[in-house]
């Protein structure tokens, strides 16, 4: 076993035959890759990261780029972002200084990659004296400007140059809070602007891409008042000018490809089962796990471990072949089912391509696909014949199981309806069919009240079924591209335009009220609809003292040029790889906050960083 040496060894020694396997940690921790070859990440990506790190330390080929560098890493969870950096850290011989929010967690010595005291260190400061954010600031400052005292002493004998280290920010402070966010931005900016220490300390920020949050309904209602961003993404994590600036590099990781994932899992299994008499899980089990993981290697390994654990118990209990087979499939079901979620792209494809029983297979379908479709068709029952006066509603049975869609949907129904609304016209053959879908969309929107508790609970079903019913079948293939809703872009523009309206209204009302003179109010609508001509005329004439210029922001609403062709939605094609899970961040935050409270209360006792020395 890879990590037996550093493992605490508290695992209960059992008399069971496979006691050696009873390492209580997760396989993800035990078998964390230690060399570059073991990484399941694409070689080129690793190379990218390595090059970046080299440049950051040595100032690039020309030596001129020696400056603080911030690197941003955005990708879905479980794509081995952190692992890559750790592996490279070992490889290239630098240390990682990592920030952790949780105070009580302190120092984790049990990480498998740690072979001594000098690898990763969580810096913690006394919780009683410093506010969480100032702690973070202090960490950032000290980590970037000071050498690590303990390590340089410990490692100085072997190293000729001063120890290199990077700052790894994975557990960011709560940047969803605007105040904290501003502080965070200021801290990062200050760091970038400050002078370079020797050796330079690059900062690596790892962000798991949570996708866009599905709260279209909410936004619409509070369109004017609300500007909150619910998601941690690059834009919230780093200030905009930095993102575009020379100091920040962004590297995105794709979900891990199935082939790589399979290879990695197989390697893991051979290591795990190599020395024991245990049967490794079957090939199809492995395939199912890989398929369900959606490129998330962490979840794949977890699922695999879970599957193996249950299997072992089963084997121990009975040896009867028939029972075992049955149990296996049940396990497989339980293991893979939970994790399986449809990627948004496929969800939309399922609804919009409207496949029905005995559709001719598509030209690109493989023999396997055709087989699969036939198997589905056999299970589908034909609908009862409708009476003649309903004949226009006659459809063949749909291959789409709406209940399953609902269960697996990564987005909520309001976001789903936005996507359907954006994309349906491409899939229709005439306006009549458009009308059908539009009808259903309106119907879904108007059923139920404005408030969330009045919402129609059957929105998703109504929408999916209505769309399926109204779309033609089979769908003409004409290279449709699934677009992202332009609604959000529009909303953003509208927000800026409203600011312009408010400014202009203030200008129209403004000065006279200061003089205490009576002036009847301009409503927003008056300003928008009637003031345009005067505004343009005022812009055109030369400025005189008697004619104050209206605020320039008025153009955001008053000037509207008609251009043929579409302006919204161009080039916003939804990518197959984009996963878009609806994450209720507010709730999550609350839980997180609550947890943090608990942790701070009890924290900072035995897992202190000093403990080791």
């Amino acid at each position, binding site marked *: 076993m890879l990590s037996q040496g550093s493992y605490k060894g508290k695992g209960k020694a059992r008399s069971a035959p496979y006691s050696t396997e009873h390492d209580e940690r997760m396989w993800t921790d035990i078998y964390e890759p230690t060399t570059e070859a073991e990484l399941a990440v694409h070689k080129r990506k690793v190379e990218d990261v390595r090059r970046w790190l080299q440049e950051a330390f040595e100032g690039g080929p020309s030596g001129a780029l020696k400056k603080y560098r911030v690197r941003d890493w955005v990708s879905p969870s479980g794509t081995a972002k952190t692992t890559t950096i750790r592996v490279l850290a070992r490889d290239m011989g630098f240390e990682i200084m990592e920030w952790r929010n949780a105070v009580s967690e302190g120092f984790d010595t049990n990480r498998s990659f740690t072979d001594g005291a000098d690898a990763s260190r969580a810096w913690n400061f006394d919780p009683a004296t410093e506010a969480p954010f100032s702690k973070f600031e202090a960490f950032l400052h000290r980590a970037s400007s000071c050498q690590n005292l303990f390590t340089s002493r410990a490692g100085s004998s072997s190293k000729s140059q001063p120890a290199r280290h990077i700052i790894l920010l994975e557990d960011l402070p709560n940047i969803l809070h605007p105040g904290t966010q501003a502080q965070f931005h200021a801290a990062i900016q200050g760091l970038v602007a400050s002078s370079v220490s020797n050796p330079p300390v690059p900062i690596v920020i790892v962000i798991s891409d949570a996708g866009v949050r599905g709260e279209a309904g909410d936004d619409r209602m*509070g369109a004017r008042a609300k500007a909150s961003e619910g998601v941690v993404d690059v834009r919230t994590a780093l200030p905009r000018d930095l993102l575009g600036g020379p100091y920040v590099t962004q590297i995105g990781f794709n979900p891990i490809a199935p082939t790589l994932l399979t290879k990695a899992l197989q390697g893991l299994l051979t290591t795990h089962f190599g020395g024991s008499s245990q049967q490794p899980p079957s090939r199809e089990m492995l395939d199912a796990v890989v398929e369900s993981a959606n490129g998330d290697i962490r979840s794949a390994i977890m699922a695999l471990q879970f599957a193996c654990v249950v299997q072992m118990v089963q084997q121990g209990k009975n040896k009867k072949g028939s029972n075992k087979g049955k149990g296996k499939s049940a396990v497989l079901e339980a293991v893979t089912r939970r994790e399986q979620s449809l990627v948004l792209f496929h969800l939309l494809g399922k609804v919009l391509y409207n496949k029905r029983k005995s559709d001719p297979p598509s030209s690109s379908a493989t023999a396997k696909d055709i087989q699969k479709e036939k198997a589905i068709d056999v299970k589908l029952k034909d609908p009862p014949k409708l009476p003649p006066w309903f004949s226009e509603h006659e459809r063949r049975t749909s291959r789409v199981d709406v209940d399953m869609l609902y269960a697996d949907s990564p987005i909520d129904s309001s976001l789903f309806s936005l996507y359907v609304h954006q994309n349906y016209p491409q899939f229709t053959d005439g306006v009549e069919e458009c009308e059908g879908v539009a009808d259903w969309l309106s119907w879904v929107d108007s059923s139920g009240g404005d408030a969330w508790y009045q919402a129609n609970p059957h929105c998703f079903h109504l929408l999916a079924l209505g769309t399926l019913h109204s779309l033609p079948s089979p769908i003409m293939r004409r290279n449709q591209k699934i677009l992202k809703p332009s609604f959000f872009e529009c909303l953003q523009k509208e927000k800026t335009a409203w600011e312009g309206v408010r400014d202009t209204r203030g200008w129209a009302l403004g000065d006279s009220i200061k003089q205490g003179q009576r002036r009847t109010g301009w409503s927003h*609508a008056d300003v*928008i609809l009637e003031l345009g001509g005067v505004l343009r005329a005022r812009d055109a004439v030369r400025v005189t003292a008697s004619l104050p210029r209206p605020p320039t922001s008025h153009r955001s609403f008053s000037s509207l040029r008609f251009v043929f062709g579409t302006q919204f939605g161009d080039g916003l094609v939804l990518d197959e790889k984009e996963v878009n899970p609806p994450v209720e961040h507010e709730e999550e935050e609350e839980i997180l906050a609550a947890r943090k409270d608990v942790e701070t209360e009890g924290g900072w006792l035995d897992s202190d960083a000093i403990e080791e020395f």
Partner: protein
Amino acid sequence: MALWVDEFRPRSLDNLHYHEGLSARLKSLAASGDFPHMLFYGPSGAGKKTRIACTLRELFGPGVEKLKIDQRVFLSPSKRKLEINIVQSNFHIEITPSEAGNYDRVVIQELLKEIAQTQQVDLNAKQRFKAVIINEADSLSRDAQAALRRTMEKYMSNMRIILCANSTSRLIAPIKSRCLLMRVAAPSFEEMETVLNYVAKRAPFTLPPEAAKKIIDDSGGNLRKAILVLEALKMQSPDLSGPLAIAKPDWETYCHKVADLIVSEQTPARVMEVRAKFYELLSHCIPPTVILKVGHYRLFEFPHLIFE
């Protein structure tokens, strides 16, 4: 320099240019000492707010024109802060509930309660009550209207409410029945001509009758629009002679072009295109009702659609 609409706005009931009957009634109401809650309604640009302002002056005297702007903070039920600008004098207070968005009920309740519970302390004040002007009352939510209804009864002794709305159809019946309804109709052609000439005289310049006719025809009974157009035209071509081209506002032209798009072709691709145009309109804050209305009127101009 302020806009002409504001600068030359009549400030007392006697100076109003049209609807003399209405002015006389308002005057006697203000003098009677038994001033009711009121609801002014009529098309936009007819002079509702001007009349309200004049009535207030008649009621309280010139002190009502000493305005100040207060920024007030209200707490929504979910403890969110709402900042709202409130225009007020010693005698009245003016609110536009649509600024509070979804939380207009909270704002209305808080504000009215506060006003209702303070007595007029100025002994020289002409009236015992304070006036509350609610602009755009037809955009009040149901909740807010219900809240308003109870307050109107309860605090009649030291508060009067003056509502201002485009139409009464979106106000609930109990509110309508508690108010004295005042319809301010759009001015006629001759009345508008008088006003435009009055503005021209004050500006001062001479307004050629053809220009006046053109402006009035274009305005559709909206006096504010007419005066704004006049000001814009005057700025562009100072002598106002020769053929005048009144440019339609951008959004209107845009709506018309969208309607033309709809008529010229009906395909799914066109559906996408038209939708993109609607998004563009919405993102310029054009109210959806206006978009639909203007678009439909344009559609009616295509005769083959009507006779089909």
